[in-house]
């Protein structure tokens, strides 16, 4: 009697767990599903709330056509497509170079801070670390307006270079945070062995430390990539024509057009697609990057 009771209990427990998991997975995935499918819907399908492709409605290339990317328009000349591709490339260049810059600067600094003793006046290692990490607290809005004025003077306004530098600054603390944890897990003996073999400090860093900590670097790089790809605030303030990134383009569409649902959906899909793919493929790295520092 008691045994069966316990069995039922476990089954109920299982159902609750899976129910919760499935519910939340639905909450996470439905908006993405909705956006992707909406880019194939005509106005009628949207207003009548049709949801499932091929059953509720017949998908059309309408969203991609509005961007000039559908099968039948891909070889024709399209200004919208040129605009879109330009923004897409801008976003890609900006985020990749900013992440690279931040990872280089950040891992150098993190390595230095985890290995050597520094003295800069009254400041010691922990103070320098704190100085870097405290940048995270700084709200972007404090920097935005001075940068606007400064960049105007330096002719960096609306240039990709200007944005890259800002984004690198924005993600630098995160890189240092992740990499410092990474480096402190590497045994010192390895490096000492390298030094004995006649490598310089830089030789040890490049030949021994970097290869070992490669997964950490990838994790940091991806986090940076995500943050700078999605960045909207600085981009909206500091770019207008040339260096405008994809999020700014998406945002500018939301205001002006009433209900051009399919084209908005296609744009949003394009803005999230690279990251969704990265997320699915490199999920374990992202999780790893986020969880450093959580456990000490």
């Amino acid at each position, binding site marked *: 009697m008691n045994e069966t009771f316990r069995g039922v209990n476990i089954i109920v427990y299982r159902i609750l767990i899976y129910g919760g998991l499935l519910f939340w997975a639905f909450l996470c995935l439905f908006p993405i599903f*909705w956006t992707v499918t909406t880019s194939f819907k005509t106005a009628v399908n949207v207003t009548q709330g049709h949801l499932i492709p091929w059953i509720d409605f017949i998908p059309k290339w309408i969203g991609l056509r509005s961007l000039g990317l559908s099968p039948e328009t891909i070889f024709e000349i399209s200004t919208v497509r040129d605009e879109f591709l330009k923004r897409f490339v801008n976003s890609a260049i900006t985020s990749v170079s900013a992440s690279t810059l931040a990872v280089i600067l950040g891992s150098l600094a993190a390595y230095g801070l985890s290995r050597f003793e520094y003295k800069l006046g009254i400041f010691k290692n922990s103070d*320098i670390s704190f100085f870097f990490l405290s940048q995270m607290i700084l*709200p972007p809005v404090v920097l935005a307006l001075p940068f606007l004025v400064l960049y105007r003077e330096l002719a960096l306004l609306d240039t990709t270079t200007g944005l890259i530098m800002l984004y690198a600054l924005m993600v*630098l603390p995160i890189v240092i945070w992740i990499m410092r944890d990474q480096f402190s897990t590497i045994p010192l003996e390895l490096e000492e062995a390298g030094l004995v073999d006649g490598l310089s400090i830089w030789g040890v860093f490049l030949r021994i430390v970097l290869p070992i900590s490669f997964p950490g670097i990838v994790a940091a790089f991806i986090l940076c990539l995500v943050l700078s790809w*999605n960045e*909207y605030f600085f981009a909206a303030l500091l770019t207008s024509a040339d260096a405008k990134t994809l999020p700014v383009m998406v945002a500018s569409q939301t205001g002006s057009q009433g209900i051009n649902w399919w084209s*908005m959906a296609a744009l949003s899909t394009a803005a999230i697609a690279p990251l969704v793919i990265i997320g699915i493929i490199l999920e374990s790295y992202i*999780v790893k990057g986020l969880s450093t520092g959580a456990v000490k």
Partner: protein
Amino acid sequence: MYLVWSFALCYGVLLIKGERGQRALFVLPAFLFTIAMVIFPLIFSVYISLHDWNLSAFEGQKFSGLDNFRALLGDEYYWNSMLNMVYYLLAILVEYAIAFGLALLLNAQIVARKFFRVAFLLPLMLSPVAVSWMIGKSLMEYRFGPAATLARQLGWETPAFFSTTEIARISMMILDAWTFIPFMMIMLLAGLQALSKEVIEAAKIDGATGWQHFWKITFPLMLPVSITTTVIRIIFKLKMADIVINVTSGGPGGATDTVTSFIFREYRDRSNVGYGTMMAVVYLIIIVILMTFLLKLLNRWMQKVT
């Protein structure tokens, strides 16, 4: 200019100090970069904030001392957005509870854990601008967004998510929570997985039920991780703006404004650099005081508990 100078400095250090210089070279680039990009603009922003400076006005800047500050003290909308920040920060508690629950679910013995983890992670990867369109402007659309339809079927006659003060604020919280719960969840999950198995086994043998077990063992052990997570979440929350700018632009009547989005509009609509900067500087000061206070408090509390 600054670039050339800092290269020269790096090279000079290398020459003078030899090996010790090589060590310094690890930190110096990042250090100089941060100084150039943070400290200098910060000082400059204090300078701007003391001026009456409108970029679209013809006459350019004019020193006005503390006029901006006085204007700020009387600015209802600014303090209103501050108050909103308090509400938004309180929402973190709910987010934390949900994230903890999800982390527990993911940590249970389940099949297809990989699938669930990826699915749960995805919202974090999406661009806030796209999210604000996807959910804010289409799913929650008044006439035929699926969320509105669902709400109608559940008995809410007029599911207008963004037109009255309280509901609009809650909607914004939900949107923001949707993107950031995965972040908290993953950090908490890492914490859960690092808990030592022996402690849990021992508790099981002692015959603790699930509920007791959670409150007596898991929760206290998770306290440090929880605090780290929450502090980082607070930092991110204080920067929240993109979604607000794109979904409601702060409306109705400033009910959903965050400080950042308010300053953003002050600049974009009025080009009022001087006043905007003053607001930002005051915000920074408040944040720094708040964070120092919070960290001190947490430190002391942690010492007492452990």
